[in-house]
């Protein structure tokens, strides 16, 4: 195990490189970058930019999963918070809009955390409730329409740029650093890992496991809220019907690709975000490839399996394949 530590992340980086290389093959201009109106422009930037919502979701999700939980409601929370932000955008200033949206995300997280930590519901069903009802709440806010807005502040959040990078990317980076600082800078990381590793033992060691669980769901809600605001800002409107639809699966996938076990315990924020980037690199590649859309899911399935196999402890990547083949021939 200790021997594995330095190798942590290697599989993910390798996977990313391979997928990038494939993308380069299907789209020769994949690595082209140019500066336009003070912002960088190119497929790589698209990958970062489009990967932002899932990266943000995975930042919260990875903590939830580290406590042995799961949050299916993040897509719905995105929709709710996007809807709130869009409805307030033209009548209120950005601080109010953000406070309202993030506050809503916090409340959603509290609700989930309450069901899991206090009522003791199983995370998957507890959050399924909000997954179903939450989208309804979001649609209730927008009445099923796409609520558009023109507030330049909010639009900037989705489409502006800082130092040539899209604002969403900068926000995601900021959140990664913030989350990292909070989690690793305090004892939170250790206590979360302990809670996920063995909740009973941690409880007996004096860890406030309930508080930990509550906290991670709240954080997950806040991350989802931010992702929702960005998604709304991106299209200058809140699409309660479709915003964040099925993104919970992508977020979970990102976390798992990032090497965090669904059975809780050890987690890595950076690798989870890397997982989100791997997924997006693949998605962008699919879009650039020009294959008919009927193939999208097949490609996705194959890539996901390949990336996971690459990481499997029982399967040391390509070397493993070769060895296996040789053995079966012999």
């Amino acid at each position, binding site marked *: *195990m*200790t*021997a594995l*530590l330095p190798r942590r992340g290697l599989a993910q980086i390798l996977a990313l490189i391979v997928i990038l290389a494939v993308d380069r093959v299907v789209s020769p201009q994949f690595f082209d970058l140019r500066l336009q109106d003070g912002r960088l422009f190119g497929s790589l930037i698209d990958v970062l930019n489009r990967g932002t919502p899932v990266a943000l979701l995975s930042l919260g999700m990875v903590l939830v999963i580290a406590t042995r939980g799961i949050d299916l409601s993040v897509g719905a929370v995105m929709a709710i918070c996007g809807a709130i932000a869009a409805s307030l955008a033209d009548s209120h200033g950005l601080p109010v809009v953000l406070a309202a949206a993030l506050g809503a995300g916090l409340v959603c997280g509290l609700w989930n955390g309450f069901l899991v930590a206090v009522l003791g519901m199983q995370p998957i069903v507890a959050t399924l409730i909000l997954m179903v009802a939450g989208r309804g709440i979001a649609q209730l806010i927008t009445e099923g329409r796409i609520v558009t807005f023109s507030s330049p502040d909010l639009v900037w959040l989705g489409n502006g740029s800082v130092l040539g990078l899209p604002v969403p990317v900068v926000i995601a980076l900021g959140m990664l650093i913030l989350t990292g600082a909070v989690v690793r*800078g*305090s*004892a*939170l990381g*250790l*206590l979360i*890992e*302990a809670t996920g*590793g*063995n909740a*009973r*033992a*941690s*409880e*007996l*060691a*004096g*860890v*406030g496991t309930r508080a930990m669980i509550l906290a991670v769901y709240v954080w997950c809600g806040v991350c989802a809220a931010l992702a929702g605001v960005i998604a709304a800002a991106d299209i200058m409107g809140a699409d309660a019907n479709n915003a964040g639809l099925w993104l919970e699966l992508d977020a979970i996938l990102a976390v798992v690709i990032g090497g965090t076990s669904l059975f809780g*315990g*050890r987690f890595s924020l950076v690798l989870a975000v890397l997982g989100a980037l791997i997924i997006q690199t693949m998605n962008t590649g699919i879009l650039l490839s020009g294959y008919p859309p009927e193939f999208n899911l097949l490609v996705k399935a194959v890539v996901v399996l390949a990336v996971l196999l690459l990481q499997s402890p029982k399967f040391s990547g390509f070397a493993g394949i070769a060895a296996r083949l040789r053995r079966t021939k012999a």
Partner: protein
Amino acid sequence: MENSSDPASPLLEVRGISKSFGAVRALQEVDFTLRAGEIHALLGENGAGKSTLIKVVTGVFPRDAGIVRLGGEEVAPRSAKAALGAGIATVYQEVNLLPNLSVAQNLFLDRQPMRFGIVREGEMRRRAKALLADFGLDIDVAAPLGNYSVAIQHVTAIARAVDLSARVLILDEPTASLDRHEVEILFGIMRKLAGRGIGIVFVSHFLDQVYEISNRITVLRNGRLVGERETASLPRLELIRMMLGRELAETTSARASATEHKAREICASFEAYGKAGYVAPFDLELRHGEVVGLAGLLGSGRTETARLVFGAERADRGQARVEGAAVRLQSPRDGVRHGFGYCPEERKTDGIVAELSVRENIVLALQAKRGLHRPLSRREQDEIARRYVKMLDIRPSDPERPVGLLSGGNQQKVLLARWLATSPRLLVLDEPTRGIDVGAHAEIIRLIRELCDNGLSLLVISSELDEIVTYSDRVVVLRDRAHVEELAGGAIDVGNILAAIAADGAATAHEGRA
């Protein structure tokens, strides 16, 4: 069949077995020979490689080198199932049963009595009852195993292995959580099986038991074979030297004088403390620098008392005081806040966080006590971990190793370290020496004394009465979930404790079950 009952012929032969986990060389060219009809003790310090040898032989771990012969034929089981098929039945060190299944299913998993492809539930239960009756257990075999104490689970595991009618029976520390009576029953059964020509491998840290039951002894040290001897011709001190590779530093017979502590202040006290259906209300005073032992049979309510005292379970009556001030103990956090510590008896489920490193496990309680915003820096953590790894001689000494990969005894030491690191005023130890080798055992008892001299108050549960007698200043005896007797000073001896345990006090026993 004839040759297997010939006591001289080797039944199980292990030659040149090696096994490494990464950089850790757990076994190096170990030989081991088991004859039919003998009871063969496999001994060694914690981490010597006993469990690993057993797991390699039974195919749980793939081996790096070496061969295994069973009845003269080479075997290479690749799974526990295959080993069973070849005739080797094993009870692994950690109770490996399924708490969610019924006792009966646990006993007969994968070999249930069948008719027309359907499990004969009634027949299975009947057989399960009969099987456990041999061990003096009369419990509801249809109830989930998890409802029962570790002891019962352990007996069930043994009963399962014994009933597999194998040629070789391997028992890895089967007696660690059993009390005298049950050990006697187990030994009776082992002798009977040996008489039938079955070869039995027996791992234990209780040397008395080893001398009582075994014919021969094989000793491992640091993954190497030290030697194989006839039990009868191996003096105890010689055995200890073989195991430790040195003399045991100090013999542990002298008990600290109780009167010396009489004047000490009360650290924590509990008045009419109890919980309906859990433990009958009891009074308990714990003084600084004093060891209070809890004695009783399995299921007598010792663990329950410990959990109430620590705050892991909420009392519904009575008053707790710490240093004279009334406190409420609602959760382990409260206990920790008041300077209590608790080493639970089930270290796998309630103690260690297997995936985390030794360092993280050691600092866990201290960190929880300090709170989120006062994180221990990595340097402080390393410092603490190093100190306790050294103090308790935790092996391997790499503090970054996941605790789950340590041997059982070393895991126990890590738990102890976790609480020592919080500098508690009261430490509750539930079976602290379970699975700990002689060397470490002496070490822990020395440590307990030392801690007391520094004013720590200790509440210790142990099924080993000798041990309790050795270090306790007072002994509380429990029966049927009620505190029935308190012995102090000269009154503390094994005979008195046994008398108190056995006395018929049914009148008070059921009070707590209202």
